[in-house]
């Protein structure tokens, strides 16, 4: 199972190590450093690196490499999923996951890691349970602890860990009983030069925030459940019920959790809510190039598109750009050649555009690759797949909860080729 964990920052310093079995010398990371050197960018370091005696599996998050060391045949997804869980836990505990924060809370980090694995076997990875075992640091608690001499470590056996519903605490009480559900869909798409869709798919999630007293039993039904192509559930969802009736029936965990994630594949035509009109021209042996892009709505179901940002990695030959946006602000970094334009809202009457000239390196031939445009946007009150929640019912408790459902569509990896 998982032998050790090393946290390495992007400059190649090991700033934390944890061993769950015998101690593995940190020199094992030299193999990782080699791979890191070979990869041009941090993202490109391969996730599985073999060494003569160990395997190094790594994920790169928040500018930190989480490198797990394993010695025997272990499913790599198991390790990678676990590392993701470590990242999530840190974020949950400390708000952000960064080198300084981890260093500031090194003892808590160490205690948490110790609770998460035993001999390399996962022990407690649910945030709810961990927090009962080791309380997250807050300024108030630190002060209280210093005065009273009490500790961060809970001395009660976490209640959920062994019950039939391990995800829910017993004895939950609220004065305001509320259940909110957010249906969030991300569109991943590649649009080609001519504006037609190369591929498009939708990744959706339903995130819930449930604060309900006691042991409520909820059912959630959709108007059009057949839309969902492949679904992954939180363990609380009763799978049989979904299989037979396409209804989500569950006893929710307390607080925030992801109820469901789903995938609407390319079979169903995916509506593309925006278009980008572009004209980017480089000329051979000329020091000037022209640049113009316009963003406009398309199949947005009458909803406003907001939070639009456009980023593009310009070719190396571009020295600088002098552009004027019709709205929003833009920046161009001559070092990284990254153009970014914060557009804001799209007004269909007056489409936002960004145009101007590029100064090119003299004498260099015309770049052979055209920049790809990355788009970010948000549409409130719309699930682009058309998914709609029909009703939400609660059984098992007597009070009347407050219920709310919100829809949102966002751009995921949305790329326009030029």
């Amino acid at each position, binding site marked *: 199972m998982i032998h050790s964990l090393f946290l390495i920052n992007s400059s190649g310093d090991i700033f934390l190590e944890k061993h769950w079995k015998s101690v593995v010398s940190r020199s094992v990371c030299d193999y990782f450093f080699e791979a890191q050197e070979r990869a041009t960018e941090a993202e490109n370091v*391969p996730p599985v690196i073999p060494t003569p005696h160990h395997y190094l599996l790594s994920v790169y998050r928040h500018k930190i490499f989480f490198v797990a060391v394993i010695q025997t045949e272990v499913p790599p997804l198991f390790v990678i999923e676990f590392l993701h869980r470590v990242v999530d836990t840190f974020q949950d505990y400390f708000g952000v996951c960064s080198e300084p924060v981890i260093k500031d809370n090194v003892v808590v980090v160490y205690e948490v890691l110790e609770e998460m694995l035993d001999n390399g076997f996962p022990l407690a990875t649910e945030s709810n349970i961990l927090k009962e075992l080791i309380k997250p640091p807050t300024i108030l608690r630190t002060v209280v602890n210093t005065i009273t001499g009490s500790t961060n470590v809970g001395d009660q056996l976490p209640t959920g860990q062994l019950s039939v519903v391990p995800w829910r605490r017993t004895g939950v009480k609220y004065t305001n009983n509320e259940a909110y559900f957010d249906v969030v869909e991300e569109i991943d798409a590649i649009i080609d030069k001519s504006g037609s869709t190369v591929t498009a798919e939708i990744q959706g999630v339903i995130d819930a925030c449930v604060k309900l007293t006691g042991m409520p039993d909820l059912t959630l039904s959709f108007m059009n459940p057949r839309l969902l192509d492949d679904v992954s559930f939180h*363990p609380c969802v009763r799978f049989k019920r979904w299989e037979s009736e396409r209804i989500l029936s569950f006893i929710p965990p307390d607080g925030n959790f992801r109820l469901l994630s789903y995938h609407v594949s390319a079979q169903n035509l995916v509506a593309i809510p925006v278009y980008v009109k572009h004209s980017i021209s480089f000329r051979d042996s000329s020091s000037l190039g022209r640049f113009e892009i316009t963003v406009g709505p398309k199949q947005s179901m009458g909803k406003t598109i907001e939070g639009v940002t456009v980023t593009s990695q310009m070719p190396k030959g571009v020295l600088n750009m002098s552009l004027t946006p019709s709205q929003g602000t833009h920046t161009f970094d001559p070092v990284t050649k990254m153009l970014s334009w914060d557009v804001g809202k799209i007004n269909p009457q007056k489409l936002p555009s960004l145009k101007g000239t590029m100064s090119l390196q003299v004498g260099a031939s015309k770049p052979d690759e055209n920049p790809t445009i990355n788009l970010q946007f948000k549409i409130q009150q719309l699930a682009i797949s058309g998914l709609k929640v029909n009703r939400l019912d609660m059984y098992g408790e007597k009070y009347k909860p407050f219920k709310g459902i919100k829809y949102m569509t966002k751009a995921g990896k949305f790329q326009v080729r030029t």
Partner: protein
Amino acid sequence: MTDSKYFTTTKKGEIFELKAELNSDKKEKKKEAVKKVIASMTVGKDVSALFPDVVNCMQTDNLELKKLVYLYLMNYAKSQPDMAIMAVNTFVKDCEDPNPLIRALAVRTMGCIRVDKITEYLCEPLRKCLKDEDPYVRKTAAVCVAKLHDINAQLVEDQGFLDTLKDLISDSNPMVVANAVAALSEIAESHPSSNLLDLNPQSINKLLTALNECTEWGQIFILDCLANYMPKDDREAQSICERVTPRLSHANSAVVLSAVKVLMKFMEMLSKDLDYYGTLLKKLAPPLVTLLSAEPELQYVALRNINLIVQKRYRDQHPAQEFPLPCGPYGFFSVLWASRPTTRPEILKHEMKVFFVKYNDPIYVKLEKLDIMIRLASQANIAQASRECNLMTFSWTILYLSNPFLFGPQVLAELKEYATEVDVDFVRKAVRAIGRCAIKVEQSAERCVSTLLDLIQTKVNYVVQEAIVVIKDIFRKYPNKYESVIATLCENLDSLDEPEARAAMIWIVGEYAERIDNADELLESFLEGFHDESTQVQLQLLTAIVKLFLKKPTETQELVQQVLSLATQASPTPPHKDSDNPDLRDRGYIYWRLLSTDPVAAKEVVLAEKPLISEETDLIEPTLLDELICYIGTLASVYHKPPNAFVEGGRGVVHKSLPPRTASSESTESPETAPAGAASGDQPDVIPAQGDLLGDLLNLDLGPPVSGPPLAASSVQMGAVDLLGGGLDSLIGDTNFGAPPAAVTTAAAPARLGAPISSGLSDLFDLTSGVGTLSGSYVAPKAVWLPAMKAKGLEISGTFTRQVGSISMDLQLTNKALQVMTDFAIQFNRNSFGLAPAAPLQVHAPLSPNQTVELSLPLNTVGSVMKMEPLNNLQVAVKNNIDVFYFSTLYPLHVLFVEDGKMDRQMFLATWKDIPNENEAQFQIRDCPLNTEAASNKLQSSNIFTVAKRNVEGQDMLYQSLKLTNGIWVLAELRIQPGNPNFTLSLKCRAPEVSQHVSQAYETILKN
């Protein structure tokens, strides 16, 4: 106030200061000090000197302080074993604590202190904790057994902990079950021979129940454990599959992939005509596709696994081409292609799209996606050889073939897009991919070539070089088709600096020397730096110039002499690499001799027809592939190597193999014999080297015919002593150099290409065909299978024959339409005995109106198996340039009777008794004029063997045996009364379904 304060040091020396604080009276100060110690430890500072002081803090009722001290202990106990003993008492005491959290903590920590002396004290507390009333303690103790085993395996066995652990598999708490499974799996890994995880249906049931209730990690352990189980029959396999399927919807990708592994393995046992099989297949694809939208690291692992599955599918469709596969094919990825039967075939295109590359994908994901795209693209044109799972996908593949545009423009445009990206490795691979597409999908070749030309125009150095390498392959595949581009290629001659690209360019110039006006100048320019070139380029240059000479002998005499002397003489300055390369020298001598003695022979050798170029590259060897399928989701699947190739410590790893399918016709066979049969079936499978070898040869040597150089090399070794003397002349005369290439052209099947090395082979061919005509089983006259009305003018009639162990389908194709027919291809649907074409349908010339062609299509029985109704029904699709036609025909069962079907007497007797009486079937064969002797002889020639003969009450009793290609034995008793033309036939077989068809075969054979 944060923990970073623990890192601040003072001048006096950190250790000294900490020591003082640890021994402080104040609880708070102590705790702070321990925290500082831990903080130093986490960043790798050595604070082991503080061991006694920290251990002194252990006796406390403060849980946090206790935990901190434990953390410290685990880290340093190993380096201070004597001091660690001091802590033992506290541990033992804590194991009795009323609070289960403390009991669990104590037993957990003790296991982590890897000191031999401590382990002795650990046994008693551990034994108690394994039987603790609190499940939390039990589950912690289960893991502790694994820890202890790692330190002292003998102790664990002596103390009987393994049995206790096995008992925990039946624990009432799912978490305890999961941990017990995890611990046992880890222990079992170091004891491959032990039967620790010897599962039976009861324990499987326990596991499946626990699977629903335990944590995600527990589910992974349980699923991985289930994957090692061998269900006793298909019903059990199906019930496990049903209970595992919900795991495909789990949010944790590792659970999903482990579930995929279990399902893929157990599906092998299900009969493919079950509705359930199809449903299950459909459920497998979407979760895998969804993994591709997860984080890049997860994507990478998923892609590596999909790559395996795609190859497995490819292999299953091409057993005839290269290797026979013992176990039933998956046809799994066909679901990715065709998961929704109601929609249009464009779905294929859409599914390909999930592998399209996003420009900000990490490079390792990009390369892997591209690799899969190439593999999938290759599947487009395999319709000829492929035998799909059901008629649905079957007809789609053909549709796909007949409409290359489904595959074409979009994928190609995508690849072209990639070829303009920044990353060099990726761009190179994209260019290669375009070349592979051209080779695999003939209809797309033209567009691929023009795309490559566009890319060459970009003048990006590495793109140009890569493009030239692939264009060479395209020329090889489609000779005399795209030579118009040579001029463009020649323009880029100067920019080539990589050996592979230079060699490719030289090959092109040599091959098409007659069309390139200045070929001699071009080649001469390379000759200047001959000794600086790599061997690959040197060899190529040598061959190219000889080719040039043979084509334009007058102008190039000087040039050829120059190259021959360069090749055969050692380089003047010794440090030049490879100048004394024996391969180069020998090839030079051979050419020299050939040219000087017999230019005609030289022409035949050097300008011989080239063998076919292989379509698929980098395939995993099939036995390994099957093994890897059992390791889906593991490191082995990421590295495409079996675990024993890299798992540490030389621990023997049990080889896994796929379970055999219990074909419905064999379902009466006992389950014990089935796996054994599969295991033995696996072995002959290791031979497949031929295909790979051929690939290697092709790579090594792209110029002259494959058979040339190896032959030349071996001849030279024989005559090496008098290399320059007359020996070689006689050698050439004796062995007849011209013959081997001729053999190449006559042997139609590409698989035989390796054969001509033996020169006596042609005789061998004659011999076999001679024997073949002597003993052959009965052949029915040809019947019309597909009337011309139904097939737009194509009439097909045919019959089945069996000659010396090989089955073939003799076909007669008649064109009754008014237009010429071309591009014939044939494909079989799955059938009861796995009949499949062993070679593509070869109609050499176009079939003009009113013309008839007769041909014989060799068949094998390694195709996919599906029980048909009736059993001997065969569905066939034939394609030509006009359309695709389907027909079905019944094959006589006796073509499946194998030559070694004679059973030993004793064996016969035992088997006869062993088969239950209800499996016996009786038939009457009426009006058969033969006597006993004649009948026996006649049957023998069709591989029905008489084992014994008896005369009972004036009746002749013939006891006969026969064996079908799939290993089913049929025993027969034929009763003949002299003078009575009606025979009585009793058949006994473990698969009674076949009896009726066997009796029909008897009747046909006896009456004709």
